[in-house]
């Protein structure tokens, strides 16, 4: 080989490296340096928000950034008391069975300086509910219902429904207000809102920066800036907290290593097994009861969740309207479960048919171990159970109607979060015979649900609580496991108390430097 050939080869290698580094250097090397800035609140999420579109804010990954930070609704629900509080609307009332009136707060401006009026509020509701945008909030909160909207003056919005809706204000609390002119045909990725913060910069794939909205109508938030980044590994998020690289880390597990900086809190998620009660042998009530008797809820919570949760007797946690505080846990009684299976077998029920136990990978910490424990418990009582772990997309095929044809009998691990704080949202989805996520129901129970949904106040609470007690006797399509708890990593330099809504809506204005006064929101 000649010297010139070698030189050419070496030059090519050097040139290739130099060109690559130079060409690609702009992306990473020019990234903004974080560092410690006392005016900046640093937050690490589990994933980058796919969009900040306000009408998608019922999606956790979007809502946790957008809701009550960038945009605001007319009314907000207090996550602790469950009461509705005024926000961009100062008052509201039911003016007729099918009509509600909302009075809009004066002196509110969007972060772009434009005043917020009743027209903006009506436009936002129309956009989220009546448009063809396929907004998630529309599906989650309003279903198929269209709303009629009117603005008799700049401070009044009239919302009409086809049938009386006693919880319309609660539903409206899910609609984030955007200015008139926001696209009705395309979702927006970076919205303008009235919230205490506005988008400063979004380095896609790396960081999202918010800055304090100087035109905010309420109390100014304590931190001038907020900086979001995302890491998919829980242990890395926990390490960022212990290494003082972030102030808040969400979605930590008990084994991620946040130690004393991890704050446990009750979130609104409940885990349960949903049984496909139309398929033999799960169409036999005794088999479904046996599955319930076989589940050792307290053991799972203690051993697998390390006490971060409470064994569940229903699909909603305390604090949600309709929760039945008197409902006891279904007992753990493997002998009774075996007896029921034997009885069913003797009556010709095909209890030896293989049942698929389906779980979603990484849906919550220790899900794989939980599924394995459940399989063992079901095998011990004489059932033939096979585990199938799936990614989100495939698991949703089994969770949402229409269910796959010919799927056979399956038991699906679900985790339900009632963000709205009212049992109607849970009942509609999981208990109605045609609910989007319901595997089974009866016309009689459907009627009871509809009757309860028409009630208000104490009557509504009592009616739903009664339904949760009756469901295991009449339907029993579920085996409840636990009301879950989350862990939030929190730096000592920040004061913040997480609540049941923190996982879905993390209000930056409630965070203050340690030791400083907590800001109050103007009413």
């Amino acid at each position, binding site marked *: 080989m000649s010297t010139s050939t070698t030189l050419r080869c070496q030059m090519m290698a050097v040139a290739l490296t130099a060109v690559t580094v130079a060409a690609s250097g702009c992306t990473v090397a020019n990234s903004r340096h974080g560092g410690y800035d006392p005016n900046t609140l640093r937050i690490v999420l589990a994933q980058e928000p796919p969009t900040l579109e306000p009408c998608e804010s019922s999606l956790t990954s979007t809502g946790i950034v957008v809701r009550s930070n960038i945009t605001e609704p007319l009314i907000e629900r207090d996550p602790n008391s469950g009461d509705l509080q005024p926000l961009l609307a100062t008052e509201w009332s039911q003016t007729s069975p099918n009509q509600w009136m909302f009075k809009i707060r004066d002196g509110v401006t969007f972060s772009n300086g434009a005043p917020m009026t009743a027209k903006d509020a009506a436009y936002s509701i129309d956009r989220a509910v009546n448009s063809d945008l*396929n907004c998630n909030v529309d599906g989650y909160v309003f279903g198929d219902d269209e709303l009629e909207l009117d603005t008799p003056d700049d401070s009044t919005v009239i919302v009409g429904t086809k049938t009386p809706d006693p919880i319309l204000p609660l539903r409206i609390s899910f609609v984030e207000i955007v200015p008139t002119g926001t696209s009705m045909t395309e979702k927006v990725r970076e919205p303008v809102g009235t919230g205490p913060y506005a988008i400063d910069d979004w380095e896609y794939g790396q960081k999202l920066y918010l800055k304090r909205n100087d035109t905010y109508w309420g109390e100014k938030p304590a931190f001038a800036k907020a900086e979001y980044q995302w890491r998919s590994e829980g242990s890395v998020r926990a390490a960022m907290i212990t290494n003082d690289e972030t102030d808040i880390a969400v979605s930590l597990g008990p084994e991620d290593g946040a130690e004393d900086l991890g704050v446990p809190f009750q979130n609104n998620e409940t885990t349960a097994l949903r049984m496909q009660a139309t398929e033999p042998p799960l169409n036999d009530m005794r088999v479904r009861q046996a599955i319930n008797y076989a589940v050792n809820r307290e053991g799972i919570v203690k051993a697998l969740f390390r006490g971060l949760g409470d064994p569940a007797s229903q699909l909603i946690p305390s604090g949600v309207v309709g929760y039945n505080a008197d409902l006891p846990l279904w007992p753990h009684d493997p002998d009774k479960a075996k007896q029921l299976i034997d009885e069913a077998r003797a009556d010709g029920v095909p209890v030896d048919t293989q049942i698929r136990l389906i779980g979603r990978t990484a849906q919550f910490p220790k899900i794989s171990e939980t599924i394995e424990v459940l399989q063992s418990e079901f095998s011990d009582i004489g059932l033939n159970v096979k585990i199938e772990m799936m990614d989100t997309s495939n698991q949703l095929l089994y969770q949402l109607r229409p269910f796959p044809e010919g799927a056979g009998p399956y038991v699906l691990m679900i985790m339900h979060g009632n963000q709205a704080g009212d049992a109607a949202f849970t009942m509609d989805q999981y208990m109605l015979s045609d609910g989007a996520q319901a595997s089974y129901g009866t016309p009689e129970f459907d009627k009871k649900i509809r009757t309860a949904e028409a009630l208000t106040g104490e009557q509504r609470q009592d009616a739903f609580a009664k339904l949760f007690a009756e469901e295991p006797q009449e339907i029993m399509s579920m085996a409840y496991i636990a009301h879950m708890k989350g862990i939030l990593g929190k730096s000592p330099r920040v004061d913040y108390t997480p609540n049941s809504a923190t996982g879905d809506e993390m209000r930056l204005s409630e965070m203050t430097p340690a030791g400083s006064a907590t800001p109050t929101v103007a009413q």
Partner: protein
Amino acid sequence: MFSFIRRRTYTSALPLIIVLLGVFLLARLTGDPTNLYLPESATPEQREAFAQANGFDQPVWTQLVEYFKGVLHFDFGTSLRTGESASEMAFRAFPATLQLAFTTMLLAVVGAIVIGCWAAYRPNSLADRFSSLLSMTAASIPDFWFAITGVWLFAVLLGWLPTSGVDSGILSWILPIATLMIRPLGVLTQVVRGAMVSALSAPYVRLARSKGASDFRVVSHHALRNAAAPALTVAGDLAVGLINGAVVVEAIFGWPGIGKLMIDAILQRDFAVLQAAVLLTAVSIFLLNILIDACYALLDARVREPAMA
């Protein structure tokens, strides 16, 4: 040389088309993305409209033709997840991966040459045993474990390095590169060592020694030149693996690269982004292979001459 490159281009184009075809078809076998993107209570009409808007209502072969037509016009479609141009997302992520991959390979090659030459020059010495230990360690340590342990040791316990991210200048690079480098370094060290052991016992090396050449000159100018070809081939293969996306490293260290983008696209059934990312990496690997082949041909006349004949 140009005819050699032209021939390699033609032979590499077919695998490229097969890869694109395979990704297109396999992605669609993974399921319908509708449930991930529409509200839970979406009506059949809404589902139909979603499918129609994204072309999912068409037969697969029609979608395939439309896709290839789009590729010819540099239109790779729009992300279902973000609404952004799929090609913009891929082009934004790719430089971060390229930068990481090439820096890693550069350091791995330099390290392997130094350690491999040292081990070959003193067989059965401490250096030789160290290189063997390095190779075995590299082969047996999972990169996930190495990365998490590195974060725990150097970031949490010692506080020397950041846990992740790209904010801390050169310090941000150390753990990702160390994690990525350990395997190529181990493999390349063994290749260099083996090739150098053969080269150092060759007659031309003995001739060089007899002419009074220094040890350094014998190793660097005579033996290493001839040992470079096999190392180049292996380094090329390893570089291809890194360009394809250092998924684990990008996920753990929050490195905004193409591997993470592809994984997210697969999980979210974001077909357009997946196809754009695969096309970009496939074209890059295709170009890299041509470069490696060209370099190999320059090093070895036996490779070059039949092509030029």
